[in-house]
């Protein structure tokens, strides 16, 4: 089937995306084929634009179209507060909460010697520079509570504290709206360890 060439190509490309298997990829491909031509063109140009227009912010290393990014340029942001995250999608997650008013620093990964990722592979030197150049009051480390995330947090604290900047770690524990009896034991134990005064 020679006409299957472009379809097969799209299926293969789509199936490379996380969470998309061959079946889903085929369904998406046929959907795009049946949709109006301008929809397909819009999708194609959105993908092309993504790669040509998005770059890294030179201050926080988040993905951005303009450098510095919107958040770094936002005057209403609290200047002394910095939240360190592993990935750009973590910025999106924290922004969605609407409760955080400081700025960010994106590491683009966490320390993992097993995968050959050391401090020099992450935006850690840039973070340390920001800590001494910008007059920061507090750095909040919001990496995942995994072994790698925890190690990275401890490491950052060791580098940042001597610079006279307060370093804190996000709490782990029982989710809001969750019920204690349904929390798994390790999470509950950590929540008790990390209790705070009322």
């Amino acid at each position, binding site marked *: 089937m020679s006409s299957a060439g472009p379809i097969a190509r799209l299926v293969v490309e789509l199936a490379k995306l996380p969470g998309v298997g061959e079946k889903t990829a085929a369904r998406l491909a046929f959907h795009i084929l049946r949709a109006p031509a301008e929809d397909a063109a819009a999708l194609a140009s959105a993908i092309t634009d993504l790669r040509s227009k998005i770059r890294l912010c030179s201050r926080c290393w988040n993905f951005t179209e303009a450098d510095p990014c919107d958040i770094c340029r936002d005057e209403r942001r609290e200047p002394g507060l910095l939240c360190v995250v592993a990935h750009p999608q973590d910025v999106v997650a924290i922004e969605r909460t609407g409760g955080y008013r400081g700025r960010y620093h994106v590491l683009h990964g966490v*320390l*993992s*010697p*097993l995968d050959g990722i*050391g*401090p020099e592979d992450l935006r850690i030197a840039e973070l340390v520079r920001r800590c001494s150049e910008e007059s920061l009051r507090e750095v909040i480390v919001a990496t995942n509570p995994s*072994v*790698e995330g*925890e*190690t*990275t947090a*401890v*490491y950052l604290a*060791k*580098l940042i504290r001597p610079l006279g900047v307060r370093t804190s770690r996000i709490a782990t524990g029982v989710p809001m709206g969750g019920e204690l009896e349904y929390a*798994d*034991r*390790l999470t509950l*134990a950590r929540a008790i360890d990390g209790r705070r005064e009322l």
Partner: protein
Amino acid sequence: MLVKDLRVRNWRNFEDENLRVGGEVTVLFGRNGQGKSNLLEAIYYAFAFRSFRTNSSRDIVRWGCSGAEIEVGFELGGFDRRLLACVENGRRSTTLDGKSVRRDTDSLAGAAAIVFAPEDLRLAKAPAAERRRALDRAVFAVHRPYLREVMAFERALKGRNTLLRRGEATRELLDSYDEILAVTGSRIVLRRRQVVSALAPQFAQAFAEIHGGAAASIRYRSDGRVGSVEGEAEIGEALRRGLAESRGLDQRRGFTGFGPHTDDLEILLGQRLAREHGSQGQIRSLALALKFAELLHVEERNREAPVLLLDDVASELDDVRRQRLFEVIASRTCQTMMTVTERRLLPDLPGRIDWQVREGRVEAAGQEA
């Protein structure tokens, strides 16, 4: 807990087999290399999410297949449940009644399988690593989240060792790994100590009954700096200090030589280490006593009987010890599954169901051939 049925697909040498499991004793018999132990392994795997024989998921999948499945029907806390464990292209997943669960899920609290295999009979003389593994399994049987704690420690340890081998890590980076090892390691030491002190009296009593003579005891041995302190925070501090002190040496040898991964479960006869002074007979009785103690402990803590998996142990024991083993099995409420090559070694146990295993096929068999 009561296991009711087992189905294996593409598991080891089985294509697709299922069997009903007896409420009391299930016997799997057949010549060597037919797959009897693979069925016990499947039960263990379903409940523990890992094998007691290998760490590689490649070994457990039938040759030429991409994945394997184990389905176990069982009763826990008065409810019928179904556990489905899958390995597909090296990725593991488990569902309980159709819902995806993690291995430390509370839904499986109290569901424990205890294995007794021929290599366990030499435990008192085995390398310390095997005794630590046995101890970790005993903790896991009563506290499922322990597995996650152990995995966190092991991951941090591998990270530190990788840094040591590369030899270019900064002080701050190694400090960070020491910190995580101290936090995760202190929990491991504490849990292991708790389980050893829970097992100790029953172990001593069981050994006196099976063997007599010198009194047997067990104790958990850490480096003196850690062994002398109590409490999670204090143990953590001792680990932190010990890791810092051994760093220079660790950097030269390229691995971490201090911490709970070097501890030992010491088994003693009188005041002497069984590993150095025990006779063949004593070593086997010690192993048996430790299993009995574990069985009692798990039953007491979980308020739910574990399933006991005896892998070809009967043929490894002399008449007296075998007799004692069967007495214990008959007196406990726990369900037993055992493999044997020769059924004539087995007494008439009540409620016994026999299956013959031949070249990856399982067939129902009457009580005596």
